């Protein structure tokens, strides 16, 4: 037999790792996972797409930090510099913004697809909670990152967001004051939001994502009811590693291509620099993912009975969020009626959010 130095080194490295890490147990766990094949299998790709978009966020975010200056008199200028002077700066920044928006959209689609496939039921409650936490984190990333360019829309979006937070009973004032770093959106706010955006949220995200992926690995991929009821002979699966994983990679390439096309065709701009004492520009709106609550708060009357309108609005939004969190305990899969109510509730929330978003966009 001919001595092959490459094969020999590979074997030595493999042996070195096998002696020190539980490689066999890990690969056994990975190979155990199988993907059910049915008419709704397409939704299984959403988590992977969100993952690749997160990867783009991390890389482009690190690159943006090379030139971005989190200082009130320099923040806007540094984004202008990235957009207009730094080679490929516009591309990196636009990619960051586009993939952030795409990631939130994909996470929302992922959430509702798992919701309607009833994937939150026992034993996957922790997967559901960690998924909701990840959506919350994505929105927090969006909110904190939005202020950083310090343009007029981002300034007012932050101002309103923190004012809404201050309406939360008991802790609202403390929370908004601590986040704002005082009574007004200022340098303190930029410093805090920057720190939260690049350090605190990523750290929490890593933990939440670790829990989420570990749970998916432990419990395997959820099967919808109609698939579970099929006789074993009619159930078809494919292995996650490598079959589904290869398809995942293809979908990722497709997603990245779409993203790059969007970035090239419509690079992300920047509004005029924020002036804390100027009037809010006419037609100001938040990002699309905050349009539904924005429109809802806009439509609510000043007073709802004895309660201030916005407080009642925040109350309703919180109740919906709480219902989403606790749905696994309500719809456990034992009652058909509860299952139908949960589906109707999810559909109502989805339709309501889409209608409010469209109304907000068109108003």
């Amino acid at each position, binding site marked *: 037999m001919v001595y092959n130095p490459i094969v020999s080194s590979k074997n030595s490295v493999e042996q070195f790792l096998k002696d020190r890490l539980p490689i066999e147990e890990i690969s056994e766990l990975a190979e155990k996972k199988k993907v059910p094949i049915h008419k709704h299998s397409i939704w299984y790709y959403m988590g992977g797409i969100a993952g690749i978009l997160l990867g783009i966020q991390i890389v482009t975010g690190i690159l943006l930090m090379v030139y971005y200056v989190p200082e009130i008199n320099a923040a806007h200028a540094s984004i202008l510099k990235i957009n207009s002077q730094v080679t490929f700066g516009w591309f990196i920044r636009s990619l960051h913004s586009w993939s952030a928006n795409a990631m939130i959209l994909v996470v929302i689609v992922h959430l509702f697809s798992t919701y309607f496939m009833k994937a939150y039921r026992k034993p996957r409650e922790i997967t559901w909670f960690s998924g909701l936490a990840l959506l919350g984190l994505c929105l927090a990333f969006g909110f904190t990152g939005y202020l950083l360019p310090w343009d007029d829309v981002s300034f*007012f979006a932050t*101002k*309103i967001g923190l*004012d*809404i937070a201050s309406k939360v009973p008991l802790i609202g004032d403390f929370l908004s*004051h*601590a986040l704002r*770093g*005082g*009574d*007004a959106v200022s340098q*303190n706010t930029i410093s805090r939001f920057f720190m939260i955006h690049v350090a605190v949220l990523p750290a929490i995200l890593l933990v939440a994502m670790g829990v989420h992926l570990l749970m998916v690995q432990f419990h395997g991929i959820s099967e919808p009811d109609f698939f579970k009821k099929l006789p074993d002979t009619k159930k078809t699966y494919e292995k996650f590693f490598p079959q589904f994983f290869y398809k995942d990679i293809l979908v990722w390439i497709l997603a990245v291509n779409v993203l790059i096309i969007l970035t090239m065709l419509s690079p992300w701009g920047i509004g005029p620099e924020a002036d*804390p*004492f*100027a*009037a*809010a*520009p*006419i*037609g*100001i709106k938040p990002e699309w993912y905050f349009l539904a609550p*924005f429109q809802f*708060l*806009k439509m*609510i*009357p*000043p*007073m709802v009975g004895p309660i*201030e*309108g*916005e407080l009642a609005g925040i109350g309703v939004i919180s109740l919906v969020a709480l219902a989403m969190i606790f749905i696994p305990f309500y719809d456990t899969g034992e009652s058909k009626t509860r299952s139908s109510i949960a589906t109707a509730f999810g559909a109502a929330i989805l339709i309501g959010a889409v209608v409010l978003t469209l109304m907000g966009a068109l108003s």
Partner: protein
Amino acid sequence: MTDTTDNNETKPVETALDECECTKKCSDCPTAEHKNGDDEVPPMTRNDFMRTLFALVALTWGGLTSFPIFMYLNPPAGDQDEHSKVTSIEVCKVADLPPGTGKNFRFGSFPAVLICTEDKQLHAYKAICTHLGCTVQFRADKQNVYCACHGGEYDAATGKNIAGPPPKPLTALKAEVKDGKIIVSLA
């Protein structure tokens, strides 16, 4: 029947149960369900005491260590604007504000709006919407004060909320003319 001893901390409960079942004398029993009286609290074992003490110490320690962090997050008073001490400001000349127009300006640490209504009366308000704190403006086409964030509207002459979600009127400031200049001061 015994409580805890130095040498044996886990067995006393078992002993107590046995005694309950055999002797029917439950007055000293440490488990509540075996007592004749329902509201008697079982004595705390040394183990329970140590666990509770540990939890209390951990909570206190946690509280003490997070106190500096909470305080650190409060910006120093020096960071708060010196402008917040402003009580009066010269905005513009009377001639610069024709009837039916308005002007946003900075009043110390907050935004303000000055309006000359069509009857040539001057009105000034804190330009902070009472809904969610956006900065309002005078709109010549509507002849009222408007918040672009959620579409709130206020009467230009009184500051009263007249449309949209604002729950309260704008905070009024005092506007007066001195030597052909408009001076706005805290009301």
